């Protein structure tokens, strides 16, 4: 009986352990499911606010219109219908408030009871009109034509140069500026962090004596432990004003500020991983080099660095990953302008910062909400790619060393 109990409890505990260890896998799967379920919803929803419609005159040959076209029409960048496949007439813009140019308040009625009929008549009477109004004011015998708004396509999403998720009448969801902003800031960060980080890694693993290393190592760990919001705060009160003054800019919140802060934050990752790799260089290999009359420095750059190059690149890649995924610090110092960056001295906006800044203002399940989840998907895929390439690099290394 006792042995049965013992056996049973062993089994039970093993099951419990197995369950616990499956949680990470489960979480990753759930993250994928939730992220992509919401994120892919972007491509199934019309980019016009729910309950609103776009209408034209019946004579207009157009049946469909894209969100970019709507925006350009309302921004008066498109002024003639033939630019988007219609007749060569100029576009007549009609907004709800313009109704007062056509009908008096009495005619519309105190409770807007005649508004649908008025709208229908206006649209019917002007052949080159385009109108944007709430669906509830759509007359039963509407004499105009409702335009189908095209759903956002994959390529529009990824190549669109404008990110105005709350724009009226049509949301603009082009993530190109955000992707480029993220890469821009991360690239700057890695350009700053790589030389510094590698120098420190070489110094700690090959040059400094043990005493100095024992002091530096925990300091680097501390650098890794400082919360990103503190880095952001430091950047905000020190780096941002400094940049503004140095370059005489209207605002100091720039891509450069983001790169500097991210660079500092990526340092511990780069240092720790590449230092580890260099310390793993076999002593025999270093001794062989020295025994041939090479100086210590020659040994470092001709033997130690080539030998540990995969570890060093893993460190660099993970450093980039850290920079790409970082949210708060970037959000606080980059100024968050969703434009394609042309200089490091202008504000930029990254993917994580966009999610953090905008998610609070979205309605659950709306297009904007889904668009931010789609951004999350992009971020997830980038980091997954980074993880897998690091994995690939370190596996290849193991292979090489018989």
């Amino acid at each position, binding site marked *: 009986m006792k042995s049965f109990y013992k056996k049973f*409890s*062993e089994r039970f505990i093993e099951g*419990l*352990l*197995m369950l*616990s*260890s499956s*949680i*990470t*896998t489960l*979480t*990753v799967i*759930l*993250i994928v499911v*939730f*992220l992509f379920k*919401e994120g892919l919803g972007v491509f199934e929803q019309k980019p016009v606010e729910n309950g609103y419609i776009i209408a034209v005159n019946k004579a207009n040959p157009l049946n469909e219109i894209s969100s970019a076209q709507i925006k350009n029409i309302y921004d008066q960048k498109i002024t003639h219908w033939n630019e988007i496949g219609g007749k060569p007439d100029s576009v007549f813009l009609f907004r709800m408030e313009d109704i007062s140019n056509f009908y008096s308040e009495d005619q519309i009625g105190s409770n807007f009871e005649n508004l649908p009929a008025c709208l229908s008549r206006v649209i019917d009477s002007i052949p080159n009109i385009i109108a944007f109004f709430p669906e509830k004011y759509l007359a039963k015998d509407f004499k105009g034509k409702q335009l189908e708004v095209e759903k956002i396509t994959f390529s529009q999403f990824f190549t669109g140069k404008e990110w105005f998720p709350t724009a009226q009448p049509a949301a603009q969801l082009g993530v190109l500026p955000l992707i480029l902003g993220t890469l821009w800031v991360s690239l700057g960060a890695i350009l700053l962090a790589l*030389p*510094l*980080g590698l*120098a*420190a890694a070489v*110094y700690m693993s090959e*040059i*400094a004596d043990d005493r100095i290393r024992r002091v*530096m190592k925990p300091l680097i*760990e*501390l*650098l890794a*432990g*400082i*919360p*990103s*919001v*503190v880095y*952001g*705060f*430091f950047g*905000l009160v020190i780096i941002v004003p400094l940049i503004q003054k140095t370059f005489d800019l209207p605002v100091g919140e720039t891509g450069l500020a983001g790169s500097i802060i991210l660079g500092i934050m990526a*340092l511990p990752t780069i240092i720790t991983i590449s230092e580890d790799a260099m310390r793993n260089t076999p002593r025999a290999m270093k001794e062989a080099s020295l025994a041939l009359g090479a*100086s*210590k*420095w020659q040994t470092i750059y001709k033997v130690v660095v080539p030998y540990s190059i995969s570890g060093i690149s893993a460190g660099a890649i*993970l450093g980039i990953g850290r920079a790409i*995924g970082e*949210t*708060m610090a970037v959000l*606080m110092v980059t100024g968050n302008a969703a434009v394609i960056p042309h200089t490091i001295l202008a504000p930029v906006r990254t993917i*994580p910062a966009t*999610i*953090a800044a905008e*998610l609070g203002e979205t309605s659950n399940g709306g297009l904007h909400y889904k668009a*931010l*989840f789609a951004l*999350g998907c992009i*971020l997830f895929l980038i*980091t997954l790619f*980074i*993880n897998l390439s690091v*994995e690939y690099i370190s596996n290849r290394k193991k292979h090489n060393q018989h």
Partner: protein
Amino acid sequence: MIDIKENKLARSKQRKQAIAFAIFRVLSYSIVAILFIILTFIIMKGVKVINWNFITQMPEEGMTKGGIYPAIIGTLCLVAGSMIFAFPIGVLAAIYMNEYVKDGIAKKIIKQMTNNLAGIPSIVFGLFGMSLFVNKLHFGDSILAGSLTLGLLALPVVIRTTEEALKAVDNTFRQASLGLGATKWQTTRRVVLPISFPNIITGLILAIGRVSGETAPILFTVAAYFLPKLPTSIFDQAMALPYHLYVISTSGTNIEESRPIAYGTAMVLIIIVLIANLLANGLRKYFGNKVKMN
């Protein structure tokens, strides 16, 4: 005759080495300098603000005066909540991976997934926590939702450090225990865990340090801009230190006037991280010598 004296070639090699090493030294020290600049700056500014009232009083006048008591309490709740969730699961998972499962596909998958989870940016955890805990499970913006989100983020940290701790235990201890007829679990519980305990605690401390400073995961799962009362249940929203620092330094009612509060908050966060790191390093050093019996 051999030529082993200083010569032109040797001198040029030495000069190059001296220059290279000097550059590397300067660059390395500049990293340390950066760290010290950040720390001293925040501590110098923060120390003027921090006093007993600052940590025990509610914010006043649109968070330009008063203390940060509710943010401290909120962060404590979140740290406790996330650790209650992540620590046991993480330790059990590490035990399974290190003591039970054999090398093979299953172990590879679990390892890979844990790595992947560790690589996911914190904002994605925020998105996930919001859609699963807040919306799907209807926890709402709550300490529960925030703790679970942070717990998932801390899970890989706990698993990794625990695994390291278990790996450091010499195999002879296991063999001795199993040889005496103990079961696997008895061996783990009575032999392996006690020996690796200090290192496991080190992992816990590091995870606490990490969780207490995270902002992105709590943005949409729990954090409140301002609450006049302390939370009373796990379904309440809470303020939190990192989020507090974020809002009063970027979007408070009066950014300039709340600057001192921001410095104070930043310093409290730095102190938490400092203590966690010192404690972890101290423990590692203290017990490091004790465990190394092999």
